[in-house]
């Protein structure tokens, strides 16, 4: 029998607390591969997904993935999500970053270095 018990840790903004980023599509799907967003190989090798930035004033999350810029938002969850590992609740998530809008291509311009 399993019993789920919760550690005393509450979710917050410090390391060690669980966070959730939601991306439209899956890493295995062809659309993401076609858009050159994520290479499936990367997933296996601890590879880079992208770079996460937050707008200074609005706090809007921005994700640069491959040659695309994704603009997202921070959304509170309707109901909290418990993260369960084994028979323990190891974290609680109450917000997520969602990136749902169409990615904007970043055009590399030739610059002199």
């Amino acid at each position, binding site marked *: *029998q*399993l*019993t*789920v*018990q*919760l*550690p005393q*840790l*509450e979710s917050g*903004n*410090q*390391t*060690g*607390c*669980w*966070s*959730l*980023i*939601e*991306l*439209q*599509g*899956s*890493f295995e799907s062809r659309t993401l591969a076609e858009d050159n967003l994520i290479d499936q190989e*990367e*997933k*296996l*090798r*601890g*590879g*880079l*997904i*992208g*770079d*996460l*930035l*937050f*707008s*200074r004033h609005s*706090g809007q999350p921005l*994700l*640069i993935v491959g040659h695309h*810029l994704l603009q997202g938002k*921070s959304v509170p969850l309707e*109901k*909290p*999500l*418990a*993260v*369960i*590992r*084994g028979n323990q*609740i190891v*974290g609680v*998530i109450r*917000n*997520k*970053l969602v990136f749902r809008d169409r990615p904007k291509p*970043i*055009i590399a311009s030739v610059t002199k270095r």
Partner: protein
Amino acid sequence: LILAFKIINKMDTSSKSNAANFPIRSQEDLIGLMSMAKISTSEVQPVVQSVHFANELLDDQVMLLELDEALLAKLIKGEDRLEVKGSIDQEAVLCTSECTYEVREVETSNSLMLSTDTLMPPATASAEGLDGGGIQVRRSSIAAVKHSYAELRRLKPGPASLRCLLPQSASYRGLVEEQEADADAAAAVAAESPTMEQLRTTAQMSDSELSRLLDSVNAIELDGRVRLLHEDLPQQVLSALMSAAVENDWTLAALPVEDACASLADLYDPRVTRRVIQLHSVQSGVLGDCVELDSKLISRTFGHFLLRLGSAYDLSVFLPLWQEAVSDAATVSLDHLAGLCLTSSSPGDCSESADSITVRYFPADLLPDNHAARFAELFKARAKWTLEDLQPYLESVCYGKVTPGSLLARYARVSNANGRKYYSAR
């Protein structure tokens, strides 16, 4: 098995282990990337994170479970716990001390990326040594990618799921039968009967629902095993108790438990007498020395017994018979038999003289739990019902948002006759 909880602060996939394969991106790399995206460093909060997959993904090891805030708060405070109940071949059911839930998986086509080291605002708003602008590049890792989460759907367990675990063949029939049983028969009974702890873990219901249902099916715990009382026993024991009360000048409003059990000891195992007293007492919980018996419950037990004996009775015959059986203990009334019998009076029939009404056994317990199936049986037994008559037959499948009203809206049709509302099949 209850494991003591650990406070888990850090995941095993720390950034350091990734560094060997992928050195941290440099400030220049990021600034260059940002300028291509037409984002200047002054537009962003200083902490920029390069998000990587962890070296070892935990997709199969972690699960997301949606919980109500209220339940979560109780779990955090340690006021309640969630337990998986049932046997391996059954659907997953999680229980708190009071409630029962089925676990359903909700799939999404999106990727849910979980991390323990990704910073969010306001932690990203300041970085040491960077006052006037500029960025600090940090590494963060995604520990797992999920495409589904689990949600809990409340269930209301009914007596049927408990009866599956308590076979009739192992029911307790009486002193004589117990004593006459040979070793093989006794062993068979023990083998078929769960212990209380086994029942607690295999019955897919919360502990408090189990307790309530054990009372409603007249189960008893004897010698470490839980068994049903044979259906005739409660009425027999009550009859004996009532006789003993008359002989000893006891009142059923203050029955001395030990004396009562002792006086019946030749006929009935005192543990059985105690259980029958408990099942008919006004107070729930542990029995005191002196107990008040509930006259309505006594009335119900005798009525139940009579209903099972015959197929149908004229009400004019049934009522006196019933009253005689109950004698002084109660004044009988059909509402004591809610959920046990149906009368044949047709609604809207103006001639309601007692002679024209018959009553027959129709127990709620034997109806299917499935809502559609239950309504089919109800409307087959009687075409039109009042809400009042229906309620005892819906009570066991209602909980939370599932109310008799919501069920009727879905499965029944309303009509009016003589200023009263009647429900019938759609």
